[in-house]
């Protein structure tokens, strides 16, 4: 906290929180949240996640305002979370609804409750003020609107802050050097200005939070017979909100796979990123179980290559760059705008 004075930051916010964008983040997979409250660290703060009477998830501060007990040791009774120590109870909005044994509920007996949504098998939490500025983005492959699918979930942990994970898709050059895309090819990135250009990823991301790009990789898939892929370049359509992104891998116009990627900012040394990869369940080799496993393998290998870079990376200000870095620099600018908004809204 002493650094706050040095940097002139708002008191009570850690440096880590000062660098977070206003966004929807994943708190935890829905399956991990049953009847009992779960204690987590999110945004470098201790939080408790629990389900209210209607089964809706709640994410709120973990410290009871009475004597500082840990609410994740408590129980859910009558749709409210009861502190283990003196049985004060808090509703989903974080307001104390019963201060057991006290004549009346003391002023100030409330704790911060974050906006929450549950979708795609995750509990999502909004950071950046008390009201979300946009919805949790649409991801059609998991809402059934694309028909039958094959899918797998993934989770990785890394010490870098969320931005580093999110800007990676906007960095065309690294595909050659990190992921071994042949060097004679050169992936190119086109910055998109019209949300309609990424409609393949789902309904537009609201609140002016959308940013999108198209990556073209002039190469052939190694396992796909030449006649299937001939003349059809591989491309990646990515669009993002400041806490995650949607991706579609295309061969020509055909979507081979779609991905939903979201981050969990835990503390300065830990970001979790997780999501879904989905393939349409249709005819042909490209949507067979074998293709899913081949995709999963390259996804895993590619992620390990990225994680190795992340483990040994130092922050830079972006002043040393080359033309291929345009995507990353534009993304950073966009991201910094949402960090600014979060700082404003968290004041």
């Amino acid at each position, binding site marked *: 906290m002493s650094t706050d004075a040095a940097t002139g930051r708002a008191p009570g916010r850690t440096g880590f929180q000062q660098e977070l964008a206003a966004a929807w983040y994943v708190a935890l997979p829905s399956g991990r949240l049953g009847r009992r409250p779960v204690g987590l660290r999110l945004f470098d703060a*201790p939080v408790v996640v629990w389900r209210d009477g209607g089964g809706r998830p709640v994410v709120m501060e973990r*410290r009871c*305002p*009475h*004597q*500082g*007990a*840990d609410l*994740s*040791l408590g129980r859910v009774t009558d749709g409210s979370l009861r502190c*283990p*120590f*003196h*049985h004060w109870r808090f509703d989903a909005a974080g307001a104390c609804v019963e*201060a*057991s*044994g*006290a*004549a009346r509920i*003391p002023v*100030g*007996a409330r704790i911060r409750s974050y906006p929450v949504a549950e979708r795609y098998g995750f509990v999502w939490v909004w950071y950046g003020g008390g009201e979300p500025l946009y919805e949790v983005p649409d991801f059609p492959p998991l809402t059934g609107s694309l028909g039958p699918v094959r899918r797998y979930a993934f989770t990785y942990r890394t010490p870098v802050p969320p931005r580093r994970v999110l800007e990676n898709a906007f960095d065309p050059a690294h595909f050659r050097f990190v992921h071994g895309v042949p060097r004679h090819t050169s992936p190119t990135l086109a910055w998109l200005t019209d949300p309609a250009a990424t409609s393949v990823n789902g309904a537009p991301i609201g609140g002016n939070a959308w940013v999108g790009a198209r990556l073209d990789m002039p190469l052939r898939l190694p396992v796909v017979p030449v006649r299937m892929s001939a003349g059809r370049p591989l491309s990646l359509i990515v669009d993002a909100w400041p806490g995650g992104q949607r991706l579609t891998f295309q061969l020509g116009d055909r979507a081979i796979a779609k991905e939903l990627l979201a981050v969990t900012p835990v503390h300065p040394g830990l970001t979790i990123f997780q999501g879904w990869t989905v393939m349409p369940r249709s005819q042909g080799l490209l949507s067979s179980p074998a293709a899913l496993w081949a995709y999963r393998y390259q996804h895993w290998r590619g992620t390990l290559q990225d994680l190795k870079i992340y483990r040994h990376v130092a922050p830079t200000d972006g002043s040393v760059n080359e033309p291929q870095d345009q995507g990353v620099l534009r993304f950073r600018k966009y991201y910094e705008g949402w960090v600014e908004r979060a700082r404003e809204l968290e004041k």
Partner: protein
Amino acid sequence: MTQHAESRLLRATPTALPRNPAGLNAAAAWYVAMPSSRLRRRPQALDLFGQPLVAWRDGGGRPVVMSRWCPHQGASLALGRVTGGTLRGPFHHWRFDTTGVCVAVHGVDRIPPTARVRRYPTVERYGFVWVWYGTPEPLYDVPDFPPLARDQARYVGFRYADKTTGTIRHLLENAVDHYHFRTLHGLALRNVAFTVLNDYDEAAANGAPIRPRSAWFGVRIRGRLPRPPVLHHPWVWLTSVVATFGVGEGFDLLVDGWPGGQRFTFSVDGEEIYAVLMGVVPTGDRDTTQIGWAGVRRTGRAWRTAARLALFWVQNRAGTAQDVPIYNTTVTDDTALYVRYDNGVVRFRRWYQGWVERAHETEDEQA
């Protein structure tokens, strides 16, 4: 909800209320260093107050607790040996007496005047090695506890030690926080009367008064644990019977202590059931052990005494299993909200922080 007749509404501004600051927040007090049985002929390394220390027994068998590093080359004196009533360093055989002063430097005639280590006043009593923290010399004695002294024959008990990541103050204020007996421990208390004691006489059952008056804090919690019809409320019935040892419904818990520990006497319908001596091993910041002795008063019938002892052990262990997770996780570096029933806790915290201040004054000078 029952209101508590003798607790008064707190009228203080929030900023005047005592915080539980991060850091050691240790009061000037007697603490437990270790059980006596752990300290034999060989020096023992131990950590207290966040400091690396060594404990050893001098020629008369009296325990000594002092800084662990030899001022010569920094070797651990815990690897040394006791010879001629002094502790001899393992490296160059410098020897230190019970006051921490170097009395012999091997191969040298003149002992360097700075060859001394900090020692802490130490006393052995009730089967524990007690160590004083906060001022160079103790400001009061280790308090009297008759069940382990002159009344030893009247009690039978057991020792306990529970490691926690709570603060020293968490462990000590717990008994003053009478409301948590209902909530955390689930006891169906009725007609509760809670008093912060003013008179030594009121705590006479715990032993001789803790002097000076300013080093003493006591509370008394009286009330009833009624037994509802067993078939309607089996769990409430069971907890009430267990908590009162099946003796009756009216309970009386007397707690008094010094800024580093407490004495307890528990009676039901006027009959004394058990006594407890609780000390704290302050290993470091958020690294503590509650340690002590708990025993029942003999009843005159062996089977009844044995049954009470067994019941008490279960009660004591079950209660600790509920308290320790709270100690371990409670946040300390923030302000609290106080309601009417926290009156005792607030007064305890004020008193306790006063003794922390006294320790700070001296510890700052020594640093």
